[in-house]
């Protein structure tokens, strides 16, 4: 399965979009995590958020998604977060008794994506044979891949990924890199918090410090 197989009518290119973060200040409880943070991304970009545990990588992702209100500064993701953002958090958002087919059909319906698009994405992540298995009976790595499939099927330009490669093996990381490359190729952008070195071409790095 190659990237070109996904470039069908279900996957038109995204209109040009910018994600800008200006003079951002974030805190968790009483602890100030960052100040005067700036970030500029446009279509096709990817950025790694790196930093020690507790540096605020997840909080920054949550602020971009609109879950956390920043102390100061502005975040512009080109419209409402509901229309532009696709989210992968610490957990994959799967229900143990639901099969991947049921879950992904539901998420396709929520995002207006055709459910015909499910199988190619699963094949690209090499979990096509697991489509009728309940999520509770998948391994951690397989669940992560299923979470990535949901992110792709949401069909939104901005992907916010929190440790996307955490439980993935070498093969899974290669699948993830292919999926990200395909997404950037159609004009999407990716913000990923990670501790691992991921091989994504021309990705920027933003270091968050205490």
């Amino acid at each position, binding site marked *: 399965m190659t990237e070109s197989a996904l470039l069908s009518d279900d996957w038109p290119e995204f209109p040009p979009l910018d994600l800008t973060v200006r003079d951002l200040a974030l805190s968790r409880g009483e602890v100030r995590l960052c100040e005067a943070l700036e970030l500029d991304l446009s279509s096709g970009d990817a950025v790694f958020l790196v930093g020690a545990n507790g540096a605020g990588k997840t909080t920054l992702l949550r602020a971009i998604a609109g879950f956390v209100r920043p102390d100061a500064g502005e975040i512009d993701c080109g419209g409402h977060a509901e229309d532009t953002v696709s989210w992968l958090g610490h957990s994959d958002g799967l*229900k143990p008794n639901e099969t991947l087919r049921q879950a992904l059909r539901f*998420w396709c319906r*929520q995002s207006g994506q055709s459910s015909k698009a499910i199988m190619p994405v699963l094949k690209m992540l090499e979990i096509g044979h697991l489509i009728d298995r309940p999520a509770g009976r998948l391994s951690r790595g397989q669940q992560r891949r299923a979470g990535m499939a949901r992110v792709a099927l949401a069909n939104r330009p901005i992907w916010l990924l929190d440790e996307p490669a955490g439980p993935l093996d070498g093969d899974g990381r290669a699948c993830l890199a292919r999926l990200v490359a395909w997404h950037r190729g159609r004009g999407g952008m990716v913000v990923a918090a990670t501790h691992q070195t991921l091989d994504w071409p021309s990705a920027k790095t933003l270091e968050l410090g205490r």
Partner: protein
Amino acid sequence: MSALVSLFSREARLAWAGGGGAAGPTAFFLACITLGPLAIGPEDATLRAIAPGLMAIAALLSVLQAAERLFTEDVADGTLELYALIPASLPLIALVKVLGQAAATLWALPLIGTLGAMMYGLDPAQALITGLALLVAIPALSLIAGFAGALSAGVKRGGLLISLIAIPLMVPVLVFAAGAGRAALDGEMDRAVATLLLTCAVSLGTMALTPFGIAAAMRARLG
């Protein structure tokens, strides 16, 4: 619109498959109404007199018993974040979610309530009013329980918090739902129907207001 329909059916399906569907609340309801006569005594007149009230209390407790699961799992497995990013308003999502779960888990209560009221000695018309009162009270009861469940999601001993928050708010529904059956028992059908309509009104009011509270609790949980 079709997105909300699919949310409703997903929530109903998850409640059905994951939580044993209607089994939990139904068993609880049955236990209440079968243990009642054993504790209170077998006199026909007494049982007839307490039937509408006992059915309403049993329904209230069954709804509460299922409330803790409603949002705790969504917080733990990351579904809450994903629901917040669905392009529909969060109060609407909360309303559809709670009613979807209620439809899957509580549908049996009005039926058993009607049959139970007949076994307590009410005639069919009176029993039907009692069952209908449960049916129209259930949306209000489950939304109030959902509000308490959303506020206490992920909190240790959330069950205690749910009882403390939900029970005072459920008092008007309980009074009207039991009142409809009691009026029917007194032979005052006009007053019974009026009380039934008042129960409807409370339910509709709850459907209009609590989703905003549930959505605010969900947002607070995200932040």
